[in-house]
């Protein structure tokens, strides 16, 4: 059976009685960029965080490049397995979560040095390469507290990329930023898109989703309501719920 690069099969998650993900399936091909949109509480962040098992599913499977991420294993083995898988899945958070006690350089090199056992010299070269990529090279020896929100997020992206992930997850990466800082982060993400990084992006920004994504998923109340190329989902949504959401969102934006 041919398999997609990322496969989510019948993902299901509930907290007690509350079902937040109801049987969601999704395939993403290598190099594809998928945006997930939807109102808050729709389950879109939960789905994203299930992909690297930050919020474990209660049912269903996640596959990356032929390996099951949420494999059923005894606790100790599972820990080893998931740590290995997470090295291949980069994640960028809404609130950056940079390590405030480490410099920009150390934020980028900490995990590669610890987990891939690379030398200080290699680590420095890696940090410089990745920070240059996101335009943050000149701030390499600053502490996170000395950076603007947009700069922090660019460093967070470099930190994730330094692990050479196969897949990048973005959880509302620009939602916590002042409007004038959003663009610099979007530019970095566009650059990654041109380099054919496989990305799954949870976002509120419809314009951005429309301009870089191959596919858009609209989620509401734990299900995928509508899915398709951006021009179809944004311009000619087939579902009533999608139309309502987009209309409200456009009004909100004005």
């Amino acid at each position, binding site marked *: 059976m041919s398999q997609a690069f990322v496969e989510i099969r019948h993902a299901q998650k509930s907290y007690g009685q509350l079902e937040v993900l109801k049987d969601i399936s999704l395939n993403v091909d290598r190099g594809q960029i998928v945006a997930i949109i939807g109102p808050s509480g729709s389950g879109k962040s939960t789905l994203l965080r299930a992909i*690297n098992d*930050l919020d474990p599913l209660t049912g269903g499977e996640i596959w990356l490049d032929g390996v099951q991420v949420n494999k059923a294993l005894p606790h100790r083995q599972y*820990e080893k397995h998931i*740590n*290995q*898988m*997470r*090295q291949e*899945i*980069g*994640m960028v*958070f809404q*609130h950056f*979560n*940079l*390590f*405030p*006690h480490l410099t920009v350089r150390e934020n980028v090199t*900490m*995990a590669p040095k*610890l*987990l891939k056992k690379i030398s200080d010299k290699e680590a420095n070269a890696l940090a410089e390469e990745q920070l240059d990529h996101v335009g943050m090279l000149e701030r390499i020896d600053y*502490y*996170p*507290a000395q950076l603007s929100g947009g700069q922090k997020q660019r460093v*967070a992206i470099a*930190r*994730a990329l330094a*692990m050479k992930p196969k897949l990048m997850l973005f959880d509302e990466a620009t939602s916590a930023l002042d409007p004038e800082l959003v663009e610099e982060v979007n530019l970095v993400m566009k650059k990654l898109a041109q380099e054919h990084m496989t990305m799954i992006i949870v976002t509120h920004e419809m314009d951005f989703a429309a301009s870089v994504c191959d596919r858009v998923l609209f989620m509401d109340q734990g299900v995928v309501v509508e899915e398709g190329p951006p021009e179809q989902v944004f311009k000619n949504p087939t579902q009533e719920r999608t139309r309502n959401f987009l209309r409200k969102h456009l009004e909100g934006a004005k």
Partner: protein
Amino acid sequence: MGLDFSVLPPFYGTLALGVLWTIAITAASAVLSFFGGILLAVIALYAPMAIRLPFRFVAWLFMGTPLLLQLFLIYFGLVQIGIDLPAFVAGVIGLGFHFAVYNSELIQTAMIAVDKGQMEAARTLGLSRRQALIKVVVPQAVRDVIPPIGNNMIALLKDSALVSVIGVSELTLSAQRAIGQTYRAFEFYAAAAVLYYIINLGMEAVLRWFENRNRLYR
């Protein structure tokens, strides 16, 4: 019998040695209490129940009883179970463990206060829980608690006087030895008080320097 401070100079050497031992026991206990405090905090927050509960109980016992009583327990208790430690070592263990319990309370609070996102971010990079604790959570918590831990260390200096009762020849016992020969209690205790005060000032200065140095990353 009035006051006569001319009795002091012949004992300058004794007092100086006492100062050195006081600094030594304070430093050794401070190091033990610092790392012990981190260890106890990690156990209190992350160890399985079966380990956590007995530790919780011992911590409760040590926070609710006088240090002096604990020193007697450690000094005489260890002898009873066949471990005859030098008084200095018993003193370091007693002081170090006592303050480790207090430090651990501070570190626990600080570890809980480290944003949940920090652990998540470390885990998404592939770090194990333990690696994330060691590399990300503990260092941040420790920096946040340097001022209050510093205050504990200054309290430790003053409580180090208590180990004189189990026979550690630090400053207080040195003063007592001199008094034994001269019967000049006021002069020698006053001298000891001045010396403690000076060490205390020194520690406060170091603490302030440390706090300033660590301000950058905030």
